């Protein structure tokens, strides 16, 4: 019994984690600047917005879906908050309103997906375009600006040597972890991906649950948007374009499966860190940006293949 749980535990560490260690060692041999505390802090700061989005995406992936509108929602929050602030609403209140709005957008996504039984891919793709378009309308295409010290409180206040924004990511992680592991709602999310029929038989409405999940992801994307706003200090209608895909990639890298409703947010942390550490490392070591995407792509592919091999072997 105990042996099995040990094995289970080792199996639970996604292969990405090992990959991370290898990559960090390689980079630190390549450049003396790499292995420093301040650089590690840089990686954390840089990974934070995507990390938060990926936590939300993980919930969606667990239900066998993807939310392609999350990136657009992040951009929208930066724009909408600044837009409201420019029209006389206190910035912090504007942030709250923006987060509520993305929660609502998420709910609408959920309603379309669940009630219409429409594949999330296409439903959220539609929403992505609508939200992007609204962001562009609010800004007339450019970036918009509202001066405030709040941004710098979030990005520059440090607690235990790490800026506040990173702690926000930690909080979101704890929240999502608790929701997924300790609440009924979390069990239902796993159920949506794993065994939808069993869920219905147990008297739980998959429709309601799906709507809640999408709304939850929207809420988290809203938080990511606020953090991103503090980081770029302006409303940028296209700042998070493509993050939804990176978030999906990070989630899958982290070992969350699109088929069985298995996995969780802990793995996602490694997935995001892998992507971010490669990017940062390639920059610090000074690799030409032309080659960077190819290298990132190869490493991601390698990680996912190793993951697949490990899984197939363990199944045997």
């Amino acid at each position, binding site marked *: 019994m105990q042996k099995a749980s040990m094995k289970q535990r080792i199996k639970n560490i996604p292969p990405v984690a090992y990959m991370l260690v290898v990559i960090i060692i390689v980079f630190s041999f390549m450049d003396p*600047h790499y292995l*420093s505390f*301040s*650089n590690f802090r*840089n990686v954390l*700061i*840089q990974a934070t*917005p995507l990390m938060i989005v990926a936590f939300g995406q993980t919930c969606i992936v667990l239900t066998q879906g993807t939310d392609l509108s999350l990136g657009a929602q992040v951009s929208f929050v930066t724009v909408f908050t600044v837009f409201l602030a420019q029209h006389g609403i206190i910035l912090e209140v504007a942030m709250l309103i923006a987060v509520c709005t993305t929660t*609502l957008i998420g*709910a*609408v996504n959920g*309603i*379309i997906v669940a*009630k219409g039984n429409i594949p999330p891919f296409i439903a959220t793709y539609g929403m992505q375009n*609508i939200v992007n*378009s*609204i962001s*562009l*309308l609010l*800004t*007339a*295409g*450019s*970036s*918009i*600006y509202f001066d405030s010290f709040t*941004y710098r409180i979030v*990005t520059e206040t440090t607690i235990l040597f790490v800026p506040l924004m990173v702690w926000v990511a930690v909080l979101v992680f704890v929240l999502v972890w608790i929701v997924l592991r300790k609440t009924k709602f979390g069990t239902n999310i796993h159920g949506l991906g794993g065994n939808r029929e069993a869920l219905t038989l147990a008297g739980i409405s998959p429709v309601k649950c799906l709507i809640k999940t999408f709304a939850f992801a929207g809420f988290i994307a809203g938080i990511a948007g606020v953090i*991103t706003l503090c*980081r*770029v*200090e*302006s409303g*940028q*209608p*296209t*700042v*998070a*374009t*493509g993050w939804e895909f990176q978030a999906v990639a990070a989630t899958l890298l982290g070992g969350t499966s699109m088929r069985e409703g298995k996995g969780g947010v802990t793995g996602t942390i490694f997935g995001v860190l892998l992507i971010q550490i490669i*990017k*940062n490392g390639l*920059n*610090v070591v*000074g690799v*030409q*940006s*032309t080659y*960077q*995407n190819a290298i*990132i792509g190869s490493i991601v592919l390698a990680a996912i293949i190793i993951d697949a091999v490990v899984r197939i072997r363990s199944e045997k």
Partner: protein
Amino acid sequence: MKKRTVVSILLTLAMACTLFTGCSTPTQETSGDSDKKEEQTESTDKEDDGKEESATGLSKATILSADKLPITGIGTTVATDVKAKESYKIGYIAKNTTNPYMNAQAEGVKKAGEDMGFEAVTQAPSTADSVEEQVKLMEDMIQQDMDVIIVHCADSNGIMPGVRKAQEAGILVLTIGTPASEDTFLRTGVDYYETGYTIAKEMAEELGGKGNIIILEGPPGAANAIERLNGINDALAEYPDIEVVASQTANFKRTEGMSVTENLIQKHTDIQGLIGCNDESALGGMQALKAANMNDVLIAGFDGSVDATSAVASGDMFATYNTDPYGSGYIACAYAVMNLNDGTEPEGKFIPFPTAEAQPVINSETVANYQDNIAWWKAVQ
């Protein structure tokens, strides 16, 4: 349950309505809107700083005659006497790696590294034009103990956190093209307004001060595109008999330039001129006009790219403007090295390059010389 359904339907409807109103807004109005917005931000900026500054809150251009510049020549003919006295590390951050223009700028920085004797590190965001990634790159460069960071900003406001961090770390920050929203050590590269004004004036003169013109704008809201468009419009406003019959965005892309022009010439059949806010969109417009047998239309663009210059040489295009990314990267390095050597301050906070004195307009007369001796794209071929 029913209540929820109603609410959800209402919400969806509301969203759909926003979408439709968004779509039905004529593009011309949108461009007008963006101009207005620009003015608004300009005026608020003005209130912030009462100092002698231009409308954007940044220092005005200081135009230097050629003998005052630290480098000689333009395009691939650039050279300098400036030499690094110690070993310096200079980092350059482009907007993307997908545009030959940006690659040529990186080459200019590398060439400067060879000529002046410093280590040049060039980077670009992996997502094209992502200011957020540019900030990350700046943070990574601060990590690498750069002495100078030169950045072609993807966005003026968005780059500020990176600029501030670099300055706090004691690193000189220079911008090329799009400036940061606050003055840095130096801004160089072309004055976009000036480029637009010059090309539009050339065209208006060639047309004898009258005719109908189509403008293919840059991406909505991009600062450089707006400045250039303002330059074009200001120049054309001086000619009462010239009418801008349509001004729509082609997003700096050839395919969009082509399709937008195809659509526009359905309605506007009497066209004498077309100005694309960069070469790519102008070339797209050219293809559309050719296909419609409208061969007498004067076509102008900006940047002096490979295809545009050969179109000028063959007479298909009227003119383009050498915005010289190669030389801009080079001159930025020269100013940086001079300051690192002995603390030399540049004559202003914005020193445009190339200036009118360098005759950056490429037309049928100057094109041969440009292609043979100057063209920046030879650096990346």
